C-alpha cells in the first residue's frame, strides 16, 4: 500500500494517465483559486459580446429537513460559500450566481420540484440529490424534458453513471463502488488471515450494492474468504442489539457495514456497548468519514484496543493534506469560520460541483466566445479537471463520473488532535486506476 506523499503522486498520475500532470493538476488548482487569471473580470466582461444580463441561476436539492436534514444544511452552506467566493470575484463571466433550492425531504414531489426550479424559476444548472432512489427517479425527466445539467454530489449508486451514458447527468462525488473495492483490497492487504466476512447494511439498493461489490472484489483478491449471510436492516432502525448479538455469535473476522448517517452512529454505539469490537479483527464502514456520524459517535465511544475501525467517504476534510495542498486548507478554514464546523463530505462535493460549473462555462466561453448553450456547457464539463478541496477532480467524458482520490482511514479520538469529535487517521490513498472500474463497467447489475 502507499503512504501519503506517494499517494498524491498517484492521484496525479491517475490524472497524468489522463494527460494532466501532477503539476498541471495544481496549476489548475491555483488558477481556480485566482479566477481572474482565466476568467475575465467584470470590468472586461462588460465589453464582452454574448453574455446575457441578469443573474445565473443554480438550483440545488438535498434533504433540508428530516432525519438526514444535516446533509442538506451542510451542502447548502458550502454552496453559499462557493457562490460568495465566485460573486466576490466577479461572478461567472461577469454574471452573478444566484442559488435557489427545494427540499428533497418532500419525497412525493421530488420530480415536480426539480421541474419547478427549471421551468418556473429559470434555473440553468442543477446540483445535489442525496438519495440514490431520487437520482434515478429524475433521469427520465432531466434527460427528456428539462435538458439541463444535473451535477450529483451525493447519491452514490453506480446505476446513475455506470449503467448508461447520460447526456445531462454528471456526478462529481465518488460513487460507492470504488470505495468498496478499495476496502476489499485493504482487507486482502492488511488482514491476510481473516476468513469469516460478515455484513450489516441498510436494507435498500445502496446497502445491497455495497456488499455485492465488496464481497465480489474480495473473493477475487482473497479466494479463501468465507462470506456469511449478509444482514440488512431497515433504514432508520434504532435497535441493533439482536443483530449485534447474532454477529457476536457468528464471530466474523471482518465486519463490513454500509450503514450511514445516524444509523451508523447508533449501530456503532450499541456495538461498543455490547463489545462487538472485542470479538472481531476489523470493521469497515464506507460512510464512517461523515462528520455528522463521527459527531454522533463521540470520542467516548471510540474503543481503545479491540478491532481496527476503518472509515471512508467521498471527501475527508484533512485530505489532501493541508500543508501540501492549499486549496483544501483554504476551503476548510473559510467553511469553519462561516459555519463553525469542519466541512462534512457533502460540503466538499457540493462546493466542487459549483466550481466545476464555473470552470466549464469559462472553458466553453474560451471556445465559443459567447455565453455557452446548454450543450456547450455539457461538452465543457466532459473531460474537465477542476481542483477543489477534494484535490483535482477529473470528469470522465465517457460516463460523466468524477475521478479523484479514494481513501480509507482509521478511527481515532479527535480530542488529542484538537478536534471536537473522532477523526480518521493513517489515511491509505488508492490509485484511482486500481479501484475505479473503467467507464460503464460495474459489479452491480443494471436495470
Amino acid at each position, binding site marked *: 500500500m502507499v503512504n501519503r506523499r506517494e499517494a498524491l503522486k498517484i492521484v496525479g498520475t491517475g490524472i497524468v494517465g489522463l494527460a494532466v500532470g501532477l503539476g498541471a493538476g495544481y496549476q489548475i488548482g491555483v488558477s481556480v483559486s485566482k479566477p481572474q487569471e482565466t476568467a475575465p473580470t467584470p470590468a472586461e466582461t462588460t465589453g464582452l459580446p454574448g453574455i446575457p444580463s441578469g443573474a445565473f441561476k443554480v438550483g440545488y436539492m438535498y434533504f*433540508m*429537513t428530516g432525519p438526514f436534514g444535516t446533509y442538506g444544511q451542510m451542502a447548502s452552506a458550502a454552496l453559499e460559500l462557493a457562490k460568495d467566493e465566485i460573486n466576490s470575484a466577479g461572478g461567472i463571466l461577469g454574471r452573478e450566481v444566484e442559488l435557489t433550492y*427545494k*427540499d428533497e425531504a*418532500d*419525497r*412525493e*414531489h421530488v*420530480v*415536480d*420540484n426539480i*421541474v*419547478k426550479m*427549471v*421551468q*418556473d424559476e429559470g434555473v440553468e444548472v442543477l446540483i445535489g440529490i442525496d438519495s*440514490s*432512489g*431520487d437520482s*434515478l*427517479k*429524475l*433521469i*427520465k*425527466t432531466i434527460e427528456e*424534458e428539462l435538458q439541463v445539467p444535473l451535477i450529483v454530489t451525493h447519491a452514490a*449508486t453506480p446505476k446513475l453513471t455506470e449503467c448508461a451514458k447520460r447526456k445531462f447527468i454528471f456526478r462529481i462525488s465518488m460513487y460507492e463502488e470504488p470505495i468498496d473495492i478499495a476496502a476489499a483490497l485493504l482487507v486482502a492487504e492488511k488482514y491476510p488471515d481473516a476468513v469469516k466476512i460478515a455484513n450489516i447494511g441498510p*436494507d*435498500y*439498493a445502496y446497502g*445491497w450494492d455495497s456488499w455485492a461489490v465488496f464481497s465480489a472484489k474480495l473473493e477475487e483478491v482473497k479466494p479463501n474468504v468465507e462470506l456469511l449471510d449478509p444482514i440488512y436492516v431497515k*433504514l432508520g432502525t434504532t435497535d441493533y442489539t439482536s443483530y449485534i448479538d447474532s454477529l457476536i455469535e457468528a464471530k466474523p473476522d471482518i465486519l463490513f457495514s454500509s450503514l450511514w448517517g445516524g444509523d451508523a452512529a447508533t449501530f456503532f454505539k450499541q456495538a461498543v456497548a455490547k463489545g462487538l469490537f472485542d470479538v472481531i479483527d476489523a470493521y469497515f464502514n464506507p460512510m464512517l468519514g461523515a462528520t455528522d456520524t463521527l459527531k454522533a459517535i463521540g470520542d467516548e465511544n471510540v474503543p481503545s484496543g479491540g478491532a481496527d475501525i476503518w472509515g471512508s467517504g467521498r471527501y475527508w476534510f484533512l485530505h489532501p493534506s493541508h500543508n501540501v495542498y492549499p486549496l483544501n486548507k483554504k476551503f476548510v478554514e473559510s467553511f469553519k469560520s462561516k459555519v463553525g464546523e469542519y466541512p462534512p463530505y457533502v460540503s466538499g462535493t457540493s462546493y466542487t460541483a459549483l466550481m466545476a460549473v464555473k470552470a466549464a462555462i469559462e472553458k466553453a466561453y474560451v471556445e465559443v466566445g459567447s455565453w455557452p448553450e446548454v450543450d456547450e456547457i455539457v461538452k465543457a464539463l466532459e473531460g474537465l479537471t477542476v481542483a477543489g478541496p477534494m484535490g483535482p477532480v477529473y470528469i470522465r467524458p465517457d460516463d460523466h463520473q468524477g475521478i479523484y482520490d479514494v481513501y480509507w482511514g482509521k478511527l481515532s479520538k479527535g480530542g488529542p488532535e484538537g478536534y471536537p469529535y473522532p477523526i480518521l487517521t493513517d489515511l491509505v490513498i488508492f490509485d484511482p486506476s486500481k479501484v475505479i472500474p473503467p467507464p460503464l463497467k460495474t459489479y452491480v447489475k443494471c436495470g
Partner: protein
Amino acid sequence: MNKQNKYLDPTGPLGLIIIFLVLALAPLFVGPFYVRLLAVGILYGVAAVGFNILFGYTGLLSFGHAMFWGMGAYGVAIGLEKFGLGFIGSFTLAICILLGLSVVTGFLSLRHTKIYFAMLTLAFGQLVYAIILKWRDLTGGDEGIYGIPRPLETVTNYYYLIIAISIVILLLIWRLLNSPLGVAFQTIRDNPYRAEVLGYPVKRVRMLSYVVSGLVTGVAGMLYSPLQGAITPESLYWTFSAAIVFMAVLGGPRIFIGPFIGGIVYVLLMNYAMDITEYWMMAMGIMLALLIYLLPQGIVGGIFDYIKKARGETK
C-alpha cells in the same frame, strides 16, 4: 318536490364541467410547470373523491387509501417496465391488483367500523408498504421503478388525457352516488342499524362501497406514475393516506365535488407552503388545524352553506 334536471346540479355535473373548462384552458395561461402541478392536483382530486365514496357517503374513515393509490401506480409501472405489457395491458393488470387488494383488505377490515376500521386500514396500508419495499425484484425496493413511459409524450398532451379520463370517472361516480345504491351508502352512513332493519344488506353494501372507493383512488394512482415517469414507495406511506383524508376534508366531504377541489387546492397550498418556508410541514399542519376548527365543512361546503344562508335571508 323539485324535479329540476339533475345534471344542472352545481355540486355535481354542472360544477364539474365548469371546473374542467377552467382546467382545460389553464395551459394557455400558465407555464409548463403549473400544467404538471395541476395534473397532479387533478389526480389527487380524483383519488380524494374515490376516498370520499367510502368516507363522506358510507361513513367509513379509511386511513390506508395510499395503498390503493400506490398499488395503482405500481401496477402500471410494473406492467410497463417489468412485463412490457404496454399501456392497455398494464392498466388491466393494475385494475386486477386493485380488485384483489380491495377485496382482501375489505374483508378483513370491514368487520369493524369507526376508528377501529381507520386503524385497521392504516395497518394494512403499512403492510402493503412493507411488501413493496421488500419485494425488490419486482418493485425495485426503495429505488422504485423509473423510466416509465408516458402516453402522448408531452406533459401537456397527457394533461388533457388525464382531464378526459377524470371527467368520465367523476361523472360515473356521481351517477352511482345518485342511484339507489348511493342512497344505500348514505343510509348506512347515517344509521346502519335502521338500514339493516329496513332490509339493506349492510355488510355487502359496505364491501361494495369499499371496493369502488379503492378502485377509483387506485385509477388515479395508475395515471400518476406515467405522469411522473417514476414511482417510489413513499407513495404508499401512511402519511399520504392522511394527506388524502386532508384533501377530502379540505374540500368538503358532504359535497360531491368537494374532495376533488380539495385535491387541487391541496397541491397548490403545498406548492405555496414550500415556497415560503422550509417548515412547510408545520405550515400544512397549522392549515389543517385551522380548517378543522374554523371550516369543518370544508371550503366548498362552506361556500354552499354561505350561499344557502344568503338565499335564506333574502327570502
